[in-house]
């Protein structure tokens, strides 16, 4: 069999993925690690099923990273991006600056000439967009503080690649050997470079607004799905090549194109169409990273490499942790953030080969550093598991011991735990009726935000009994438990029932399931967060469908009444799934019947209830009997 054929290679890669990923997932290691290990196994240094051309395949697979950033951009409207400018510039900028400085200094002290040291510092300051985003998404952490901050840092790094590429030739110490290289042919002068950068960014924005949209309109009208997907791929590939030509990061270009198209009506179709390609290419990319780990060098120089890996992770962890602390990120989020970003990135491969072409660094050093970067990337999923399973539970307790604002609100009858969208409404209602509330919130950004509107909320984790004590849980009458995390709500409920038995707990719950659990934990009153607003919306819809307002109001009230009643009646059955579903279905049917009969009754009532003659007739009949 021709082992060099494309199909044979595809067979090897796909088989590796199909075997490796489910196993890794099963072991709780996540897909990224599965790909990486599969890559190591089939790579030239282990089983050798894929040849030394793995670098070329990786180069191709990097396109997956470009697509991923395009898709990330699609989720991010310009407005949202603008709101992120502080974390991007502050957190991202400082991370690259400090990490780069420390690594450069260390390299310089180890005897590397300053140009080389600076290059190493810059390149190693970057983290892996592919691994971090994939892992965070898989763990469902992208929407958390840690996820958003990680994304901000990665975005800054992607931007920082541009000046790094521009700087590299200036740092050359050896004569540039390969002058006819693809990168060098398009090498532009400094001012040309700047113009090209501004020009291409402008081109993306203008084209995104005025060219791409009409093109998609046209394509969509053909109704050919594959042509739509082809157009999407064409768009991303076009951007990639264009960006490469002017010396910009294709990932960044694709990201911007994504942002420009974020409010386009074709957003979802683009996402759906490109997602499988992105996922496959990313998987391929991870496999090639695994395969490119040069086990020969690793075995030859095990100690040095392991020390370097450790040092790189350590420097990153220290800088990231300190910065997150400085930006007031809560400890748990900080740990997620820190360990997510503590690795070298795929850009390092590109930048190192570029550095080699420009004669900035010696080839042996680059080979060693490439292995180090690949190893740190491979270690990331493990580090995150370590942080999640070992460190976070450890610090979770410690965090509870202290770390909250001093509360100087005096005694208030009501404590509001969780001052987000839900808590705000409750608190404003109570305050408008003259009841003082003490506000507790875990999100520093939210606290800053409400402070701008003149409201004072205190920072702290409400699962911390000391914070509750400081907030006056002993003297308060009611705790409004409006945190959106169910586990937290249950924990706080249990804590309060134990330590402050007098305190009444009014809890918010996500849905029915969560409501039962919080109720079982001992809350006095539980309200599903969407019930009221959904009923109000339904009521308005009924009005628009021709109902009188009073009629719609009654229907909504009836629904609320019976639904709440059934909910109470079913509380005891919760836990026994079979019984519960049986009873719940019965109640749901009952409710529907009640609502229907209410309408019929009322219609009949109109005919008879106020019919005094009917009364007279029945009286007469009574007389006769």
């Amino acid at each position, binding site marked *: 069999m021709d082992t060099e054929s494309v199909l044979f290679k595809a067979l090897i890669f796909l088989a590796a993925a199909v075997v490796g990923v489910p196993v890794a997932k099963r072991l709780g290691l996540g897909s990224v690690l599965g790909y990486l290990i599969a890559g190591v196994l089939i790579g030239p240094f282990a089983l050798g099923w894929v040849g030394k051309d793995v670098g070329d395949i990786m180069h191709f697979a990097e396109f997956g990273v470009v697509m991923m950033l395009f898709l990330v951009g699609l989720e991010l409207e310009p407005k949202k991006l603008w709101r992120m400018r502080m974390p991007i510039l502050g957190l991202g900028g400082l991370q690259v600056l400090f990490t780069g400085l420390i690594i450069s200094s260390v390299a310089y002290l180890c005897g590397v000439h300053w140009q080389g040291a600076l290059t190493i510092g810059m390149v190693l300051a970057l983290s892996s967009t592919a691994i971090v985003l994939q892992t965070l998404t898989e763990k469902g952490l992208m929407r958390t503080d840690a996820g958003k901050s990680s994304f901000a840092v990665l975005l800054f790094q992607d931007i920082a690649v541009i000046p790094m590429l521009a700087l590299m030739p200036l740092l050359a110490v050896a004569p540039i050997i390969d002058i006819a290289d693809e990168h060098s042919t398009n090498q532009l002068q400094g001012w040309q470079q700047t113009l090209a950068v501004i020009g291409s960014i402008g081109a993306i924005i203008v084209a995104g607004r005025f060219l791409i949209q009409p093109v998609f309109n046209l394509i969509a009208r053909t109704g050919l799905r594959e042509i739509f997907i082809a157009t999407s791929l064409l768009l991303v590939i076009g951007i990639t090549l264009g960006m490469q030509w002017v010396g910009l990061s294709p990932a960044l270009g694709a990201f911007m194109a994504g942002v420009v198209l974020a409010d386009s009506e074709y957003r979802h179709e683009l996402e759906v169409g490109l997602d499988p390609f992105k996922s496959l290419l990313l998987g391929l990319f991870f496999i090639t990273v695994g395969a490119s780990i040069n086990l020969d060098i690793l075995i030859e120089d095990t100690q040095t490499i392991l020390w370097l890996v450790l040092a790189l992770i350590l420097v990153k962890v220290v800088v990231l942790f300190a910065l997150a602390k400085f930006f007031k990120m809560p400890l748990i989020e900080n740990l997620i953030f820190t360990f997510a970003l503590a690795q070298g990135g795929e850009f390092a491969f590109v930048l190192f080969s570029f550095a080699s072409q420009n004669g900035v660094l010696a080839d042996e050093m680059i080979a060693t550093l490439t292995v180090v970067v690949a190893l740190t990337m491979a270690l990331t999923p493990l580090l995150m598991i370590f942080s999640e399973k070992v460190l976070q539970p450890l610090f979770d307790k410690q965090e509870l011991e202290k770390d909250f604002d001093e509360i100087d609100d005096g005694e208030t009858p009501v404590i509001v735990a969780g001052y987000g969208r839900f808590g705000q409404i409750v608190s404003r209602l109570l305050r408008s009726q003259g009841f003082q509330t003490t506000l507790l919130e875990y999100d520093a950004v939210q606290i800053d935000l409400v402070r701008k509107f003149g409201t004072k909320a205190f920072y702290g984790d409400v699962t911390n009994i000391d914070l509750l004590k400081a907030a006056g849980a002993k003297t308060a009458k009611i705790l409004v438990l409006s945190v959106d995390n169910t586990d937290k709500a249950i924990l706080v409920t249990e804590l309060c029932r134990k330590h402050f038995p007098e305190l009444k707990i009014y809890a918010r719950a996500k849905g029915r399931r969560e409501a039962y659990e919080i109720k079982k934990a001992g809350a006095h009153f539980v309200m599903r967060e969407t019930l009221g607003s959904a009923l109000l919306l339904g009521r308005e819809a009924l009005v628009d469908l021709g*109902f*009188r*307002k*009073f*009629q*719609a*109001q009654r229907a909504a009230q009836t629904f609320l009444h019976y639904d709440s009643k059934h909910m109470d009646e079913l509380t005891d059955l919760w836990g026994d799934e079979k019984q519960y579903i049986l009873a719940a279905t019965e109640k749901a049917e009952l409710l529907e019947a009640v609502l229907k009969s209410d309408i019929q009754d*009322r*219609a009949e*009532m*109109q*005919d*008879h209830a*106020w*019919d*005094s*003659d009917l*009364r*007279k007739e029945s*009286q007469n009949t009574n007389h006769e009997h």
Partner: protein
Amino acid sequence: MANRILINFAHPRFESSVANQVMVSAIKDLEGITFNDLYEEYPDYLIDVKKEQELLLSHDIIVFQHPLYWYSAPSLLKEWQDLVLEAGFAYGDKGYLLENKYWLNAVTVGGTYESYSEQGYNQFPLEVSMKPFEQTATFCGMKYLKPFAVYDVFRISKEKMIDAAESYRKHIIGLQNHLDLVTGSYT
């Protein structure tokens, strides 16, 4: 100038009341009258007292159109009376702001005309049954007009109902154009 008429309409089941639908469509579009649908305005019973009082002040004749429930008004209209006709506005110190305005009940009634008599099972004539309205108006210094009533609304034919609505319309137009507010007589 035509008299300014406010019709405060109250019916909790308007959607299924043929009688009142016919009655309302007979007067709703009359020029120069204000039609105030209370159950549509306040389905949650949260009456805007200030707004209702201002409406009263800017009209000369207040019509209460409603079905007669238990010899009285539907509950929202009772709530309206309790809140809007408050001390300091309708009576009491700095009150009596409705003085000399006219009050008319336009009611739909389930029983027959005959049933509202000493011999009938309703025992009293309609005017007597509705004395609380009259006394409320009088208490506030308002002039109470003889109720406009449509009897037996569940039994009469559609044609008769339309006739009744038509005479209601004429009644309102008469009040609008021919009632002398000072003397209380028709011109």
